[in-house]
């Protein structure tokens, strides 16, 4: 909550900073939290969600299953989506940003 409140502060007080952040860090249109889920649900849910999204929309996937962290990016690319970022949040928790149908 504190973090959210701080983010709000930044938004109000420093619009320029926010605009700068937006170019560096694309804002997701949708977030998919598949932490804790078993194989292959993280992958299947990610791919079906991406198929339903509009071209150019950004999907954020939160995932903690190591095999899917490796498999989602390569399969998203194979399906003509664009992987913008794979980052480790903490331990096995990862955050993947994908632009839907970017290469279609």
């Amino acid at each position, binding site marked *: 909550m504190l973090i959210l409140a701080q983010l709000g502060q930044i938004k109000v007080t420093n619009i320029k900073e926010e605009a700068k952040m937006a170019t560096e860090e694309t804002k997701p249109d949708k977030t998919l939290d598949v*932490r*804790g*889920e*078993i*194989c*292959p*649900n993280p*992958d*299947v849910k990610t*791919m079906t969600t991406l198929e339903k999204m509009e071209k150019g929309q950004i999907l954020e996937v939160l995932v*903690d*299953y*190591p*095999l899917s962290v*490796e*498999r989602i990016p*390569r*399969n998203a690319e*194979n399906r003509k989506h664009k992987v913008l970022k794979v980052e*480790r949040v903490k*331990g*096995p*928790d990862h955050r993947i940003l994908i632009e839907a149908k970017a290469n279609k």
Partner: protein
Amino acid sequence: MGGHPFDGLILTGIPVGLAFGFALSRGRFCMNSAFRDIIVLKDYALLKAVGLAILVSMIGFAIMDEADVITISPVPLWWGAMMLGGFVFGIGMVIAGGCASGITYRVGEGMVGAMAAVAGLILVGLMTTTGVLKDFTSDIRKGTLEMTHEGAHFTLANAFDVSHYIMALAIAGAILILWAFLSRRGGNAEVEAEAEEEKIPWKERIFKRGWGWMPTGIVIGLVGIVAFYASSEADRMYPLGICGGYWTTVKSLILGENHMTWLSVMLLSTIVGAFIAAFLGGEFKLRAPSPRTILQCFGGGCIMGFGAGVAGGCNITHILSGVPQLALSSMLAGAFIILGCWAAAWWMFLRQPGE
């Protein structure tokens, strides 16, 4: 029962299990994913790892058998049990979200769903091999047993009256040539990806990152070779296995029915090895899916327990250890594990119910 209550040589299962668990976790080595992803995700990385591990073990086993270090020991060809058990096991692993090796390494990584699957595997596995379903299992095995004229258990070599050494090396050679031919025709995307990885220091690549299919397949194939030798020096003439290890462990530690064996020591070490790999890689976390999914994992584990109990082993006993010995029983069980996997994967992920 041998004369000694405790055979110190079963302790060689510790280093073998640690290495096995470490490699399973780093390589994310799961045959459920390997076979299921052929149809569901069209991803072939783990399939290549499984193929390479079998190839490496096949060559190693053949050389060791020829040198009289070990003896090729195929599981008996109980064809009915192999078909039924294999198919059921294949269905179960899709529902449980992992094969025997997959759920085992994920227990070490802290995944509660995998723990539920292991519980089901143990419970129904024991019922099938020594409990209420014992008679069913032994009937289907006895009723469908086929042996060679000399009373040996079938392999691809003795079925054609060829020496094991020649047959194994011929098959391995044929696979290698085919593989070289196919990879030549494929693109060089993989080569580029590997060049990219070159820049990462080796320590980080071994301990922190997931392994590619090639190191995974080679290491697991080599672990299988060492396992065959080590266990043959202790109490059993067979390479790696998983389900029997769980059952013996529970019988030994909880039910007090027998002693720990090489296999049970190796299996416990496998879980520890996977934990070490996950811990060093910063991937260990106790994590649980929804209660409904945990129940699903347990149910899948129960189905796997029945399948492995009837077929005399899981995907490790048959596909990773039996196929490289050219055992016809294991090839049949393996084929039906794949068929069961595809049937369940189609039902769960590909079918579009009334859309």
